[in-house]
């Protein structure tokens, strides 16, 4: 195994429902003591049914909704230290792609602007930005000529390509993919998954791939973690976990259709 790139240590996320009079009247533990590490250039697949805390974990690891307790260290960078330089470095190292491509792009910004956002934040001059955007769009299979168009002119699959280009603009090493293909047509899903596989190889990326689709996870992952009720109940290399799941819930997940936690085509 290669060197460890991502280390998630005892991460918990608790939501408090604070009232005006009674502070911390009710609390809800969305993620409880989750730890894992991901080796560089590998894919950790995270499976679990809806509402088990997958997306909360993704947002906590991306430091968008920082964990209540625990540490996240990516390539030696710890955003929990609250240092400006560390944070800026973390934002260049870790990127996230969300499920819904329709709300992932600002409807009032042309897609070129969206893709250039990370570069602009780094102070890249305008002409270099434009060249970079063209290169990135080309890389994900979108014609650079369309950079000045608004998101509504693109299909779901195309938008997800644009979103991926935007994330890759800052040359991250670690990509969190939170159900990136779940809201796409099955035929488009395959295209995006193949794009992700190609990009991972070309740019030597590391993925945390979150999905409720077991086939997809099995296809992509080097290692698989199974999440339920906010905790990881089982984690093992992919072949091992598929061949011999230890936990009963995992066995139920991998068993035939009737026990699958949710139908394939869910409306969300």
């Amino acid at each position, binding site marked *: 195994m290669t060197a460890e790139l991502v280390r998630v240590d005892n991460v918990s996320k608790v939501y408090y429902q*604070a009232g*005006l009079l009674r502070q911390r009247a009710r609390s809800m533990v969305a993620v409880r003591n989750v730890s894992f590490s991901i080796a560089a250039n590998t894919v950790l697949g995270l499976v679990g049914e809806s509402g088990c805390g997958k997306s909360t974990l993704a*947002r906590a690891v*991306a430091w*968008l909704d920082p964990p209540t307790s625990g540490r996240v260290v990516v390539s030696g960078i710890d955003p929990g230290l609250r240092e400006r330089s560390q*944070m*800026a470095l973390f*934002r*260049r190292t*870790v*990127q*996230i792609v*969300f*499920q*819904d491509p329709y*709300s*992932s*792009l*600002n*409807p*009032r*910004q042309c897609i070129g602007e*969206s893709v250039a*956002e*990370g570069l602009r*934040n*780094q102070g890249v001059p305008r002409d270099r930005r434009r060249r970079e955007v063209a290169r990135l769009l080309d890389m994900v299979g979108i014609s650079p000529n369309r950079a000045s168009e608004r998101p509504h002119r693109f299909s779901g699959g195309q938008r997800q390509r644009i*979103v991926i280009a*935007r*994330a890759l*603009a*800052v040359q991250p090493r670690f990509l969190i993919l939170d159900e990136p293909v779940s809201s796409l047509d099955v035929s488009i899903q395959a295209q995006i998954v193949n794009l992700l596989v190609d990009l991972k190889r070309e740019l030597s990326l590391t993925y945390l791939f979150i999905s409720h689709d077991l086939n997809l996870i099995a296809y992509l992952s080097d290692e698989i973690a199974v999440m339920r009720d906010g905790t990881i109940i089982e984690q093992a290399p992919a072949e091992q976990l598929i061949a011999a799941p230890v936990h009963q819930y995992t066995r139920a997940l991998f068993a035939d259709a009737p026990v699958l936690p949710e139908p394939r085509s869910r409306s969300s």
Partner: protein
Amino acid sequence: MTRRTEIFVRFFLVVSVVYLGALVVVAIAAPHIAPADPRMQNIPARFTPPGTDGFLLGSDEFGRDVLSRLLFGARSALLVGGVAVALALGIGMVVGLTAGLAGKVVDSALMLIMDAVLSFPTVLLAITVVSVFGYGLPQVMTAIGVIFSPLFARIIRTETLTLKQEPFVLSARALGTPLWRIITVHLVPNMLPKIVAQCTVTVALALVVEASLSFLGVGAQPPTPSWGLMLRNARNYLFDAPWLALYPGLAIGLTVFCCNLLGDLLGELLQRDQ
């Protein structure tokens, strides 16, 4: 919407835009198009009925030309409407964004203040403010601006709370976009339709409050041409010179109606575009 209501809606949209546009032109060009000085008194010609002796809309108790006063009154009305709404929007924007982006404690505190302001009857609160700071249009504008700021603060806060959870805003944060850019590029442009709709509706509200205050004698002071003030003076001659009340009343009513209409229709149209 059916084709018929669609045409209906578009028609009224055009009508209100044309009327309000004309009003703005009239307000700006008032000195050039008014037939007389709105403050010039002509006691022998008092209470001239409309259409006689060169008084197109008649003259008032001092013999002043009603049409000229009406045209100049449009200035006061639009000035009050514009400045008050700009102020309300400014305060509402700061409060709403802060409440939406800061933590729960700040949010609760700010919204408590806003709700407190909103819980007072508008005209009563305006009278109180104007009584403390003095009569006159500048005070009225400020008072109306402050009083209506919660309307904007609420909308902007709600929009901020929704938008900041949107994946495109989260993505911007993940890319390290600074807060001011998130506000100006991602948040405000996406709440603009609702803000614009609220602006036109609030202009109408501001006009009504201004007219009420002037009517009560705490707003525009004589001899400033103001529709509310014209109504106030007309009250004494309602039976002898009904045109004195008719024209400013019509002006206020039409303007408020068109603003409300425009606000509603804009809100609906912009909603559908999204």
